[in-house]
């Protein structure tokens, strides 16, 4: 209960700050995740474009090789007629290029004449490079890569459709996915009289190109109709050659626009079909073939498992989670500190109030603070001071009243009531302890005549002086009181012997007998004393008082100005001779 506010405030602060950091973390994660996925997609698209450009560069490299060969003087000489020396020279060149380029299946020089007869032909056959000669050379004019190339201007490149090569006798290239690039060999007039033709191994080229790609990337290539040429699953490629077409737009419906030519690039996420278990992010671009080609457009694509993309986001998520947890911890500490800072002064004030109620000294209040709590503390301190002063005044007046009630106004001696209490008290104590005490009843002799002679003021002055002398003459432990009028009483605690009482009585008489100066004249006052003793003269205060009173009257009767014990057993005391 004592920390109610502290706990509540702490919980509230901690809750609010945890909620704030949690929400911030969540939205930061969401936004960053979306950005990460987006950037991964963009990266994928960029990589696809880069790959596309590299394909273009590879094609250009083949084109350069073609140009070198087509411009070689031996090429023109060889197509213009049988020329074994030139053919051999060219064959050697073809062989070295074929060896230097593992992705080339075949290099040929084909003449426009003789129905497209191959003049020089070097094939890859397994690990070997094989020159094809004589009767084995074939006529190729009926293939579009020949007729198509011969229609081109010198220096340009022809690119065939990408197909499975079924040309019988193609050695290593037989029944393999191939693309044919060719360039015309021109005579002096600029007419195409032949063609240099290179068969390129599609898979070889792409294996090289895809070497640098991350391992989890999947590569796709489709022709202008969407038929797969390259696919992570080789059974999906060249479906048109097997009688069952497999189209990119069926697997990735979003590529429909690419295949139709309505779009140039796209990003898509696929999570159904074969990607139901492992969704992918995929980027596709439509690459327009820049040379004269039967394959005028290719769709190139890269796919990456969505999980790989999200793995980065998951790492980010755990970092965000750690940060949020850290922040929450800090917030919790701050909340505790703030709660304590707020409740500490409140607690100290409540302690101060409690102590004040219990009558303790005022506890320290945070009065030095400049805030609202300081104001409250100062007001409280002020109020506390006022209450204390008023209580003090009340106490003083109560004590005065008490004094008045128990003392005689004229002499300042305890009055009858106060004496009665003292007597009872002494009586109880004496009974318990078996002690003794004595009562001396003292009466001013002929006080009426004093009053008459000196007036009431003279009488009062006499009484005051008598009271003073009685107080002075007795021990501290003994009690002196004014019982009313001219009667006084003295209680002697624990007198050991009767003689002690006698000594005291005589001493009292002695002290009060000396003349009293009043307005320059001497006033002679006499006293009669009656003495009773406990337990000799009674067991009650009334008995004791009555006996003392009686003894006093006996003293008066015996001639005043003396004392007498009330005890009947003892010899009658003679009044002290004056």
């Amino acid at each position, binding site marked *: 209960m004592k920390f109610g506010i502290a706990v509540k405030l702490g919980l509230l602060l901690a809750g609010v700050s945890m909620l704030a950091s949690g929400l911030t973390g969540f939205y930061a994660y969401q936004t960053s995740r979306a950005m990460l996925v987006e950037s991964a997609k963009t990266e994928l698209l960029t990589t696809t474009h880069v790959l596309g450009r590299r394909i273009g560069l590879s094609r250009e490299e083949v084109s350069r090789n073609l140009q070198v060969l087509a411009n070689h003087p031996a090429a023109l000489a060889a197509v213009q007629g049988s020329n074994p020396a030139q053919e051999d020279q060219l064959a050697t060149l073809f062989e070295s290029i074929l060896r230097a380029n593992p992705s080339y299946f075949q290099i040929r020089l084909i003449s426009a004449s003789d129905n497209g007869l191959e003049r020089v032909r070097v094939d890859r056959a397994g690990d070997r490079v094989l020159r094809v000669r004589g*009767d084995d050379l074939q*006529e190729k004019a009926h293939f*579009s890569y020949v*007729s198509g190339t011969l229609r081109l201007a010198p220096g340009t490149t022809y690119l065939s459709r990408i197909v499975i090569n079924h040309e019988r006798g193609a050695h290593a290239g037989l029944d393999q996915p191939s693309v044919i690039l060719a360039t015309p060999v021109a005579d002096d007039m600029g007419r195409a009289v032949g063609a240099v033709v290179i068969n390129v191994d599609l898979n070889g080229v792409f294996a090289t190109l895809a070497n640098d790609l991350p391992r989890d990337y999947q590569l796709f290539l489709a022709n202008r109709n969407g038929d797969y040429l390259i696919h992570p699953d080789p059974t999906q490629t060249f479906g048109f050659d097997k*009688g069952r*077409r497999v189209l990119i737009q069926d697997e990735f419906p979003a590529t429909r626009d690419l295949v139709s030519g309505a779009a140039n690039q796209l990003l898509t996420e696929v999570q159904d079909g074969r990607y139901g278990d492992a969704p992918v992010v995929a980027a596709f671009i439509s690459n327009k073939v820049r040379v004269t080609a039967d394959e005028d457009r290719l769709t190139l694509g890269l796919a990456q498992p969505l999980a790989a993309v999200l793995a980065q986001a998951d790492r980010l998520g755990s970092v965000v989670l750690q940060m949020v947890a850290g922040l929450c911890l800090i917030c919790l500490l701050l909340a505790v500190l703030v709660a304590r800072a707020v409740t500490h002064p409140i607690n100290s004030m409540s302690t101060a109030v409690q102590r004040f109620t219990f009558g303790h000294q005022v506890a320290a209040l945070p009065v030095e603070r400049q805030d609202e709590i300081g104001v409250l503390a100062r007001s409280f301190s002020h109020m506390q001071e006022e209450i204390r002063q008023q209580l003090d005044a009340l106490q003083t007046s109560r004590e005065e009243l008490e004094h008045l009630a128990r003392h005689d106004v004229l002499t300042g001696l305890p009055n009858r009531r106060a004496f009665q209490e003292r007597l009872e008290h002494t009586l109880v104590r004496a009974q318990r302890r078996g002690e003794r005490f004595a009562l001396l009843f003292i009466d001013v002799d002929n006080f009426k005549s004093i009053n008459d002679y000196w007036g009431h003021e003279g009488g009062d002055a006499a009484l005051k002086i008598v009271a003073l002398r009685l107080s002075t003459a007795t021990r501290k432990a003994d009690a002196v009181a004014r019982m009313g009028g001219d009667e006084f009483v003295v209680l002697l605690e624990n007198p050991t012997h009767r003689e002690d009482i006698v000594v005291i009585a005589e001493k009292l008489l002695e002290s009060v007998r000396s003349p009293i100066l009043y307005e320059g004249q001497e006033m002679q006052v006499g006293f009669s004393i009656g003495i009773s003793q406990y337990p000799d003269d009674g067991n009650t205060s009334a008995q004791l008082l009555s006996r003392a009173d009686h003894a006093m009257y006996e003293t008066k009767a015996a001639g005043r100005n003396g004392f007498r014990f009330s005890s009947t057993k003892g010899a009658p005391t003679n009044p002290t001779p004056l």
Partner: protein
Amino acid sequence: MAPFLSLHTHWLRRLAGWTLLCLAFGAQAHDTLRVLTWPGYADPDLVKAFEQRTGAKVEVTFIDSDDVMWQKLSKDRAADFDVFAANTAELQRYIQADLVVPIDTRAIPNTARQLPRFRNLKGIAGLVQGNKVYAIPYTYSEMGLIYDRQQVKEPPTSLRALWEPRYRGKVLLYNGSTHNFSLAAMALGDSTPFHLDEREWPAAVQQLIALRRNAMGYYGQPEESVEMFTRGHATLMFANYGSQQLQLLKAAGADVGYAIAREGALAWLDCWAITRSAKNLELAQAWINFFLEPEAGNALLTRQGLANTTSESPYLRPQDKLKWLEPVEDVDRRARLWDRILAGDRASKVLAP
């Protein structure tokens, strides 16, 4: 715990594998129909309708030549297919190789919808052997000549137009061994183009090499021919798919004519047959029955420009001389030599043993 767990997972995985395998076998055996046929014979919408009606899955594989069909069906004794469509001449080698099973025509009630001459199966050479029916007629066409009317003003009257030097590099041909040898024989005036005797081979080869030297290229599928024809501005085409190609070319906007040479035109009648490996005969029969329904017949007529067997053909003219395909003397030899010719070999090399 870990080894036990991995063992457990391994075991589970194997179980799952077996289950999948069994399911796959079950599905293939009873619910999947594997069809081998020609482009235009089983359009996707019709296949879908059939699948919905039977609850079976259909896998259609298209071929573009008799040679390829033979390759696919003779491999593993037709284990990969249940139903296929072949012409009456080709059918003979499948029967001889025991790759097809007889068909119970009573299980195909739609045969009642066919024209009488197609119901009279004994009247069609090659369909019935020893009182057993081996195929149900589906569609037919002749192989005419398609010409570009912009470039060829007079419709060609002879097959020899294909060899005319003025059309050099402008003639589009079909990549199929048996028909090309038959074509060469007909052009040479041979009245028995399906039976080349030993003396006729060199001439036929020379004729085909000469034709190759006139060729712009060789096509397989009808769509491919259309693309090559329009892109390459061909003047003349040997139309293996006949009216089907004519219709496609016209649809593609080509200004083309169709001619039947005076030597006659090769003609084929394609029929549905069931392979020996068909596990679900009812499904195969249901397939054949389905494609004799009006919807499928109309699709042949209107979409493909092909005749069907349930109505008279709008494409055939009575005056045209047709040479219905017959089994050839040696399909393997034709195929082997044709491969060499197509690859560009010269006569000596083609005729080499």
